[in-house]
């Protein structure tokens, strides 16, 4: 996709179809749609400062244990030191995006050691297949 907010609906349509074949419960499919949408929205808003026409790559890989979704942009890299999670008790009117991604993902990592941009990796384990269930394949390194 490219970095226009109007592209997000197309992304969700594509991702919804991708996720159908992966045997995930429906609520988890919905959560992943949201998590990936939030990462793409972050790329639009922060990595590209709202500039349209810039590339955002989204891929889905699946194994017996998990689903791995990568979101990659080529703009300003994510700066973890600048990030502050939302104070939920104060009900802020912004800052929920990455919090939601972290809540939804079983594992979230990001890679900024590259020429440009950020590659995010979301791992979602299949029910009963995560590390806590003794069957997972470990935490990935982004």
């Amino acid at each position, binding site marked *: 996709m490219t970095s226009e907010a109007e592209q997000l609906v197309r992304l969700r349509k594509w991702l919804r179809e991708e996720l159908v074949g992966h045997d995930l419960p429906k609520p988890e499919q919905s959560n992943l749609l949201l998590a990936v949408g939030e990462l793409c929205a972050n790329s639009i808003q922060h990595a590209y400062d709202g500039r349209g026409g810039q590339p955002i790559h989204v891929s889905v890989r699946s194994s017996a244990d998990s689903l791995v979704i990568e979101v990659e942009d080529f703009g300003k890299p994510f700066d973890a030191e600048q990030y502050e999670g939302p104070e939920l008790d104060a009900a802020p009117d912004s*800052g929920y995006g990455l919090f939601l991604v972290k809540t939804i993902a079983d594992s979230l990592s990001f890679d900024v050691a590259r020429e440009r941009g950020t590659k995010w990796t979301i791992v979602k384990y299949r029910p009963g297949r995560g590390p806590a269930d003794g069957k997972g394949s470990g935490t990935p390194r982004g």
Partner: protein
Amino acid sequence: MHIEVTQAGEIAVVGPQGDLDMAVADEVKRVLAGLIDKGQSRVVMDLSQVGYIDSSGMGVLVASMKQARAAGGDVRLCTLQEDVRAIFEMTRLIKVMSVHPTRQEALASWR
């Protein structure tokens, strides 16, 4: 996005139709801010036709709720679909915002 605005006595009922995401958040914000600025600070937001909401959409609802409360009113939500409700629970906004199962109950909550 199609946004239906109707009047139930002194209460404005706003019904967006479609996904409430980053692409339409500003449009929804303008509609809500316009109502509140005109003195219509009692608002019921009927989300029955919203199947998806993201952090931008939620941000607009929270900001509008604060604006309405500052003006002596509120933005109250009703008829949340399951996926949308789950996101309000994740962010704990379900405890901050006034959420009702039906439009009738949201309207009745003002009485």
